[in-house]
């Protein structure tokens, strides 16, 4: 399979994603500069973390106008797999592929840590190698991961089973105490209605190798591969 990793000015997890896809997942992978406009060669697209355009004005706000983003929107509408991690998630919100918006962390501080996530849906292209209710450990690192949407949207997210990952405690408690940033309903990751676009604040690429202290992230990328192999693009 061939993965494309989009590079905006200010992306800084692009190399990490490339490393994991290439050297750990052993897939053909390459960078796509934000001024490109053709995604036809790729089986899946990754929007990596970082500070595109310095995150000035609002996170993801300027990046969404990069030429590549209209291609990403088309790609997603045609059912292509798109995963946005951290800043990638923020960009997906701004461009409207996912509903809602990001606010600053409740603490107003950037926070770097490893958190527990509950897998809320396992039959998605991104979580089929995980089990529903399973608790995984994934690093976070962000200043604006406080997910917000209006009530109606939240209802829809619930009804359509679009909430994929939530922050939780070691026993799966989904309380405020285990919510690192104040996000609505402890949301850590959501997908679109069709299920082919995922946005998540935690960084699976930071826990895909044992030397980094955990491999739960590996399973998210393995799910994507599995899906692509089974269903095709």
């Amino acid at each position, binding site marked *: 399979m061939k993965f494309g990793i989009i590079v905006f000015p200010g992306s800084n997890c692009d190399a990490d994603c490339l490393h994991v896809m290439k050297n750990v997942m052993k897939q053909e992978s390459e960078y796509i500069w934000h001024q490109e406009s053709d995604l036809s060669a790729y089986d899946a697209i990754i929007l990596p973390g970082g500070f595109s355009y310095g995150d000035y*004005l609002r996170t993801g706000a300027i990046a969404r106008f990069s030429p590549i983003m209209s291609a990403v929107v088309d790609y997603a509408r045609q059912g292509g797999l798109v995963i946005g991690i951290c800043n990638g998630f923020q960009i997906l*919100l701004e461009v409207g592929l996912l509903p809602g*918006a990001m*606010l*600053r962390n409740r603490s*107003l501080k950037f926070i770097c840590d490893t958190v527990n996530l509950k897998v809320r849906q396992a039959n998605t292209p991104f979580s089929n190698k995980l089990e529903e209710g399973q608790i995984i450990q994934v690093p976070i690192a962000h200043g604006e991961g406080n997910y*917000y949407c209006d009530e109606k949207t939240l209802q829809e997210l619930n009804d359509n089973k679009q909430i994929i990952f939530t922050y939780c405690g070691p026993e799966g408690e989904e309380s405020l105490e285990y919510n690192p940033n*104040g996000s609505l309903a402890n949301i850590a990751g959501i997908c679109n209605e069709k299920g082919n676009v995922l946005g998540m604040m935690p960084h699976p690429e930071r826990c895909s190798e044992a030397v980094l202290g955990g491999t739960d992230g590996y399973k998210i990328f393995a799910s994507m591969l599995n899906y692509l192999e089974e269903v095709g693009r």
Partner: protein
Amino acid sequence: MFKAIIYVTLKEGVLDPQGEAVKKSLHVLNYEGVDEVRIGKFIEVWLKSQDEETARRELEDMSDKLLANPVIEDYRVELMEVV
């Protein structure tokens, strides 16, 4: 030449953690009369445009697209002609 100020505020009902934090700090500093604090930003734009109407249209356009996020923010444009 026109100068515009676009005031961007969080929508009512959207929690403003920064405003909350500032309020708390002000209480700590003994300004107990402070009831509420909300924080917004404003964007000053100097632009050349044919006329006021065009300028206003352009500015609203910019705001809808880029300067404000309609999911969480409201905005208001103030426009003046400058020399």
